[in-house]
């Protein structure tokens, strides 16, 4: 099981959401994708996409305006 990191800091809508989706498509079942970013709406919307696709949201954290979201495929 691989851990895939996607850095979307300083990117704006819709890039973090799209990059999260691209990484999840490329990942194998069981892989963990960690997306980091600074765009605030994406912090809410990536978990919405995870739920809509029936994937597992492992963790949402934010330190000093930088959030990170972990998803298991």
């Amino acid at each position, binding site marked *: 099981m691989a851990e895939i990191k996607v850095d979307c800091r300083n990117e704006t809508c819709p890039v973090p959401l799209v990059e999260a*989706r*691209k990484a999840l498509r490329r990942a194998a079942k069981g892989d963990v994708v960690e997306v980091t970013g600074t765009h605030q709406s994406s912090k809410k919307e990536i978990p919405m*996409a995870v739920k809509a696709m029936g994937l597992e949201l492992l963790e949402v954290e934010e330190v000093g305006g930088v959030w990170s979201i972990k998803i298991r495929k």
Partner: protein
Amino acid sequence: MNKKATLIVHSGDLDKVYSAFIIGLGALSMGMDVSLYFTFWGLERLKKGNLDKAPLSKMNMLGLGRWMVRRKMRQAGVASLDKMLKDFVELGGKILACDMTMEIMGIKRESLRSDVISEYCGVGTYIKEAMESDITLFI
């Protein structure tokens, strides 16, 4: 079966084509299937080398408004239409081109981005796609 969104891209204006791609990419990213149906002025954007050679729908001011908006977008880190189109295709989005419009506007297949167009079709195809869709928009 996945939920689906079908958007008609009738406008070729820069701001509206951006909206179409942002909504399309958002829907793909939320796990939906997406078709963008390009017709009339929208088809201009599918001509080779023409994707972002578009005016603004308002306040274009002979290109000055377009220049200002593009500069603001770059500063804000908004992705280019080239990147959006590439991501759209990578995520499985379909680009449909209206062949009736191509005929009346004298647009030949050779002049269009055949590398991204998945189908040349008419209104019947749009209606079929729209019937299967949860979201349809006319842009």
